[in-house]
C-alpha cells in the first residue's frame, strides 16, 4: 500500500495530470501559425 507521503504525491500528480503541459509551452510563440491541435481522421497521414 502507498505510504501517506506517496498518497499525497499522487493527489498532486493527479491534479497536474488534468493540466498537462502543452507542446507550445516549450516553444517560442508563433505569431502566424500557432499550434492548434485537433483530432483528424484516422485515415489522414499521422506523421
Amino acid at each position, binding site marked *: 500500500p502507498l505510504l501517506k507521503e506517496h498518497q499525497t504525491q499522487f493527489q498532486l500528480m493527479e491534479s497536474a495530470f488534468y493540466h498537462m*503541459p502543452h507542446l*507550445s*509551452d516549450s516553444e517560442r510563440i508563433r505569431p502566424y501559425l500557432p499550434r492548434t491541435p485537433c483530432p483528424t481522421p484516422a485515415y489522414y497521414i499521422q506523421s
Partner: protein
Amino acid sequence: YEDPPGLVEKTDQLLRDWIGIYHSQHQGRDSTKAFSMFVHQMNVYGILKTDDLITRFFRLSTQLCVETVYRVLAEKTNPSLSLLRPKCYHTLDAFVRLVALLVKHSGDANNTTTKIHLLNKVLGIVAGCLLQDHDTRITDFQQLPYQRIFTMLFLELNAPEPVLEAINFHVLTAYCHTLHILRPSKAAGFCYAWLELVSHRVFMGRMLATSPQQKCWPLYAQLLIDLFKYLAPFLRNAELAKPVTMLYKGTLRVLLVLLHDFPEFLCDYHYGFCDVIPPNCIQMRNLILSAFPRNMRLPDPFTPNLKVDMLQEISYGPRILANIAMMITPPQFKKDLDSYLKARAPVTFLSELRGNLQISNNPGVRYNVQLMNALILYVGTQAIAYIRSKGLSPNMSTIAHSAHMDIFQNLSVDLDTEGRYLYLNAIANQLRYPNSHTHYFSCTLLYLFAEANTEAIQEQITRVLLERLIVNRPHPWGLLITFIELIKNPTYRFWQHEFVHCAPEIEKLFESVARSCM
C-alpha cells in the same frame, strides 16, 4: 519578508515597462538596444543598489508573472486554452528575456563568476517560488508559468554567443541542481513539466552530446534516478492509475531516445538506475540493460554453436560508474566480507550473511535490495579479478570452488523465496552486452542451476530469466545467450523439470520461447 516600502509597486512598474518594450515594434527579438536604457531605469529605481534588493526584485517579478498567469488561466470569458496560453507566454517570455540579458551583461564580458552567481540566484528564486506556490495552492498549482520560465531561459542561455558559450557548463550545472531541487518527490504537482524540461531536445543535446568529456553525464544520471525513485512506489502497484501511466509512458519514450542516441550513457549508469527501478518494471529495466556501445557489433545470440567463451569482448570489463564497495555497509560487514573472500574463513560468515541483508520481517520489504545488488556485483568483480590473478579466464570450471561461489551458493540455499528472487535479479541485472561481467554472471547463473540441491532454486532461476524474456522487446544480449544455453545444453536437463510442464500455458510459453531462440 518585509519588502522595503514601494518596492512592489516599482517592480510592477518596471516589469510592465519591460513587457511593453519587449513586445514593441521596433525592438525585434534581441531587445539589446532597449536593455541598456532599462537598466538605467532600474538604477534610478534603486533596484540594483544591493544584492538584497536585486534578490527581492527577482522574487517579486517572478511572483507577479506567475500571478498574471493564474489570472489569465482563470478567465471564464475565454475558455479556449489554446488562446489563453499565448497570453501567458506574453508576460513570461518578456521576463525571461530580461533575466537572460541581465545574466549576459552582468559584470565584465570576461567575468563569468558574476554571471553564474546571478543565474544561480535567479534559478534558486524561481525554484523557491515554485515550491512555495506548490505547497500553498496544492491541487490548484499550475505547472505552466514555471515550465515556461525554465524552458525559455534555457533556450536563451544556449544561444550561440561567445559570452554564453563560456559559461555553458555552469548553466547546465545550475539547471541540473535546480531540477534536482524540484524533483518529483519534492514537487509532485510539477512532475510532468519536470520531465518535459529534463527531456527537452536542447537540454538533452547539451547535457549528453555536446558537453566536453561527458562532464554532465553524472548530473543527467542523477535526474533520471530522481525520476525512477519517484515512480517506484506507484509502479509497484499491479494496476497503474492514468496519471502514473502517463508519466511512465513518457519515461519510456525518454529512455528509448537515450537507448538510440546515447547507449553508452545507459551502459555507464545502468547500475544506479537498476538499483532504484522496482523489480516488477521488467521492460523498463530491460531497456536499460539492452544498451551496448555503438562501436560494438553484437554476435547474433541465435547463432548455432555460438562459442561465447571465445569472444574477445568477454575479456574486458564494463565501466560501472558507481562506487560499489562504498555501498556495502555497515563497514564491519564489508570487512568481514573481504576477510572471507581472502581466506574463505570464518565459515560463520556464510551463516550470518542472510541476517546482514534482511531489514525487516514484513513480506515484500524484507531485504535491503541496494545492499544485495552491491554485494552481488562486488563479489562477482572480485571473483573475476581473483581468477585472472591465477592466469585463468572465468568459465564454468574456474568460477567454482572459491570463496566467491561459496557466497553465491549460500545465498541460493539460505534465502527464502523473496530473498532468492531479489538475489537472482541482482545477478540477472549484469546480463548485458558481451563483457567480462556478463560472461561471469551468465556462467554463475548456469552453475547455480546445475549445482542446485533443490528444484526450487532451479525454478526461481528459470522464473527470473523467463519473465525478462516474455516481456516485449528489447532483450539484453546476455539474457538471451544465458537462456539459450540453459535450454539447449543437455547438461542442465532443463526440459526434465516439473516446473516446465506444470501448466499448459507455461509449457506453451517455454516451447514458444525456445522456438524463437532456436
